[in-house]
Each structure stands twice: as structure tokens, then as C-alpha cells.
């Protein structure tokens, strides 16, 4: 636990992590202002008529039936932020050479890697949940001044909190994956470029050339887990449980490979 706490403190002191959190907070404030201004002067009926819903209508924050809503907009950014944050926590350590310093205090590399991954995961989980709360809280002035809480009941809160927890878990997974990739490559940029290339280039190529493999792609499985809805296409059907298991398997494979590589490689002072 001491090592985990130390890793968490170190991660929180990284400038990139602080910048990411600051950007997210600014984003929340901006979203709140836009929601308030955008809903001002409109009647509830007009707000409800909007095709995309309105953040001033609380029930539009998360629509359990369709698994859509304003919260979904935050998910993508949280995923990106957690991934970049995790990559910079691990990659920055290699760049600064502090991996060597820490190993002269804790030579059990797998333990260190586990603590670093766990700290990234736990921090992402907590920060992501807190940011979602703040993101939605930023809409409260619009709701109370211009909008409505009509229709909000226990089922709504239940669905909303479960969606927020699910998002937090996904961002935690993204951070752990980023730590693994940056550790394996000893580089922040590699982790970011590798995932970008995979998601944007390779997966699109696979979709075009081998549609039968789509069910195994990160994008499809991530979308399924994020919305927690059955993904139905002409070629396959994917449920959220199977999609979660698929993503977990990918994550475990990459984390395991990174841990094995970190456990065996020679450590130089800097990369």
C-alpha cells in the first residue's frame, strides 16, 4: 500500500496530469455556461422538442432506454484523457530516468509495475467519476433556472450512476493500458501513436477488408460497453458482457506483456 500511495502521489504531481484535469474542469465550466445560455428564454416544451435533448432537462442527461444523453459526450474525452494521463505517468518516468532511482528503493519490478498500473487505474477511476459529477453539476443552473427536473426518479438516478461507474471503469482500463504500452516502449509518444494508429488506421482497414473480424475490434467492443447495449450489425451481434470480457482479455494480454518486458529488461538511467 505504501508503494501504491507513493505512485499515486507521484502521478498527481505530473504536470501533464494536472493540465489534463485543468482542461477537463474548464470544459465543465464551458459546458455549463453553454447549457445555461442555450436554454435561456426557452420554454420547457421548446427544450423538450430539441432533437438532441437539452442539458437543462435533467432527464436528458442520461436516457437509460437508448443509453444516450449528455453524459455520453463526456465519455470519449474522459477515455482520451485517461489514456494520455496514464501514458505520460509511465513514459515520463522513463524520460526522466527516475525508474532507476525508484528501483534502487523497490527492486521488485513486477511489484513496482503493479503498483504503478494500479495507481493509474485507481486515480483514473476516481478522477473520472469526480469529473462526471462536476460535468453534470455544471448543468444544474440551467436546470433550476431555465429547465426542469420533471421525470427524475429513482430509476433515473440508478441508471445515471451505473453509467457513470461504467465510464469510470473504462477510463481506468484505458489508463492501465496506457501505462503498459508506455512501459513496454519506455515512451509516452509510442503509447499514444500506437493506440491512435490501431484505432483509426488498422481497425478501419480491418472493417473494410475483413468485416467478419469486426466483432473482435476495440472500437466495436468499446462502443458496446460504453452504451451497455447489444450491438447488432449485419454480420454479428455483440452483447456488453462479451464485449467487456473481450476488452479485459486484450488489456490483460498487453499488461502481461509489458510486465514481462519490464521484469526482464536492463534498465538504463534514461531512454
Amino acid at each position: 500500500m505504501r508503494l501504491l500511495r507513493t505512485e499515486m502521489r507521484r502521478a498527481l504531481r505530473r504536470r501533464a496530469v494536472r493540465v489534463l484535469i485543468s482542461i477537463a474542469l474548464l470544459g465543465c465550466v464551458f459546458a455549463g455556461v453553454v447549457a445555461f445560455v442555450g436554454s435561456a428564454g426557452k420554454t420547457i416544451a421548446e427544450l423538450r422538442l430539441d432533437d438532441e435533448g437539452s442539458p437543462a432537462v435533467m432527464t436528458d442527461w442520461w436516457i437509460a432506454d437508448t443509453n444516450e444523453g449528455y453524459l455520453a459526450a463526456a465519455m470519449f474525452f474522459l477515455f482520451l484523457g485517461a489514456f494520455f494521463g496514464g501514458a505520460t505517468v509511465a513514459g515520463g518516468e522513463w524520460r526522466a530516468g527516475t525508474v532507476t532511482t525508484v528501483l534502487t528503493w523497490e527492486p521488485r519490478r513486477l511489484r513496482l509495475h503493479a503498483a504503478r498500473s494500479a495507481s493509474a487505474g485507481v486515480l483514473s477511476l476516481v478522477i473520472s467519476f469526480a469529473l462526471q459529477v462536476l460535468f453534470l453539476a455544471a448543468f444544474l443552473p440551467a436546470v433550476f433556472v431555465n429547465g426542469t427536473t420533471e421525470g427524475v426518479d429513482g430509476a433515473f438516478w440508478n441508471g445515471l450512476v451505473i453509467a457513470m461507474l461504467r465510464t469510470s471503469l473504462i477510463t481506468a482500463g484505458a489508463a492501465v493500458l496506457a501505462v503498459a504500452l508506455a512501459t513496454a516502449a519506455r515512451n509516452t509518444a509510442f503509447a499514444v501513436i500506437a493506440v491512435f494508429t490501431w484505432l483509426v488506421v488498422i481497425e478501419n482497414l480491418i472493417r473494410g477488408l475483413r468485416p467478419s473480424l469486426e466483432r473482435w475490434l476495440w472500437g466495436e467492443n468499446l462502443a458496446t460497453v460504453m452504451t451497455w447495449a447489444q450491438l447488432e450489425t449485419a454480420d454479428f451481434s455483440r452483447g456488453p458482457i462479451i464485449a467487456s470480457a473481450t476488452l479485459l482479455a486484450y488489456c490483460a494480454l498487453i499488461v502481461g506483456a509489458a510486465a514481462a518486458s519490464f521484469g526482464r529488461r536492463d534498465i538504463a538511467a534514461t531512454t
Partner: protein
Amino acid sequence: MNVIEIDGLHKSYRHRAKRTVAVDGLDLAVPAGGVYGFLGPNGSGKTTTIRCILGLARATSGSVRLLGRPVPAGLRDAVARTGAIVETPALFPTMTGRENLRLLARIDGIGPAAVDDSLDTVGLTDRADDLVKRYSLGMRQRLALAAALLKDPELLILDEPANGLDPAGMREVRNLLRRLADDGRTVFVSSHILAEIESTCDRVAILSAGRCVAEGTVDDVVARAGHRSSILVRVADPDTGARALRAVGLSVERLDGALRVHASAEHAADVTRALAGADQWVTELRLERFSLEDVFLELTSLQLDGQSPPAEEASLAHSIEEVVG
């Protein structure tokens, strides 16, 4: 008891299909107590050896024991009793010096009082709350030293600890190392600054091209390398003086206006007596001593030139052990 035991250590790297041998069959036994100098030119394998000792690099073959524990299997226990600096001090630049130490201290459950003590020991208390990114290299080096001292270690392994320090800082570090050794710790320090080592170390090992070419006390290494001290004298007539000295059995070398007598300081009286007997009055008499640097340069240049060291030098590690042991 030996705090570090290295047996047949071999470490090679493969880079772009080319294999580079960094350490080539190194045997080393560092006894407990005192300051042990680990010398060698850049690229001789000092840092690689230190990395193998600390488990940061895996030996290609051979074995290493640190504080009696095998590396890497017993590292956890050994590292808890070892303070180390490896290469350039790597610390967290966006934290203050004190925060850096506190963070490391937490890993081993060390309290803040020890952090303050360490900062005080290396003279960084006044700048402890500045961000490390604003530190000079010398200050980073001191902070790294403070980090190494945090565990109150039995053994300190310091890789070039005087790097980046000004002369006053180097003297402070030298005094600190001596003080730590006098307190009963073992200080294993690598360096290529020979003047620093010579005045601080109890024993030295000289590494060249990954091999140990000399090991023992500084005096023994100098002596066993075949260098004897000599006496330089100036007289009015060097030729007459040389004849007089040879007549009493001394080996003399004629220099430009002076004579070099290959004899130790104890023979100075014999020299002056012989010269006085030949009516040659000494205008200058100076003892010439060979330094560790002379030996170091000779031994390491032999290796770098691709020559084998003389048999006497090659077997120094063992023969000096016998003499000293």
C-alpha cells in the same frame, strides 16, 4: 565479510546485430568498511557493473552477491540496506528537493526527520523547498546523495558522485565519504577523477575494457605496477655525481642538468653522502613519487591499445590480495 562479491561477471549487449562486451569476466571482492574506489576510464564497464550489482541489468554470465545476498533473488533485503546513485542523479523535477526525498522515504516507511537529517548532511537544507528543476547539477548530485543516505545504509554505492560539483563541493563530498566510512559504513565509489579517489580510498580496483587490471590498497597498486619512487638531485657536475652514486651501487638516470636516482626516500642520506664524498654539493633534492593516476593511465592505456598488461599487472588482483591479506 565482503559486502560485494562478483564472480566471473560477464555482460554483453546486442545492438543492431553487433555484440558489445561491457564487462568481461570481472572478479571483485569488496570488504566491509572503508572507502573502495572503483576506477576506470569512460566506457570501461564501471556503470554496467554497478547496474549489475543493483539488479538494474542482468549479467550475461557470472554471479553477484550484495551484502551476502544473491542478485537478483535476494535484492529486496540487500537494497533495503544499500544507498545508491547510478549515473546522473534522476529525480522528479517538478517536486522540491524535500518532496523528492519524502516520496522515496515513504517507500521504506522512513519518517520526515530522516529527510531533514539527510538534507542537513549534504548541506541542502536552505534550498530543500526549491523545485529540483531549478537545481544545478551539483545540487542534484547532493540531493541524490541525500537520497542514498536516507536509509542509513550499511553500504553506499555511488557512481561518479563528484560529477558536476565545484572544487569546494568535491572536497565536501570527499570529506563526507570519509566520514561515512569512519562511521563504519562501506562506501563503494566509482570515479575517473583519480585525485579524488587517491586521497579518499582505502582500496581501489582499476577497470579497463571490462576487466579488473589492478586491485588493492592505493600504495600496493602503485608499487605492484612496477613503479618505484625516485630521488631527483641537482649538482654542479652531474657526470661526476652520477659516477659517485653508481660507485655506491645506486641506479642513476642522467637528465637534463639533473640526476634521477632510482631509490626510495630512505636512501636520501646515502645519496647526499656519496655526492658530498665526490665534492658535489646538492643544490636541489626532491622525492619523486608515482601517483595512482600514473598507474591508472598506464594500465588503462595498455588495455585500450589492445595490448595485454604485463603478467605482473594482470595478476595484480590476486597477488596484492596475498600481500595485503
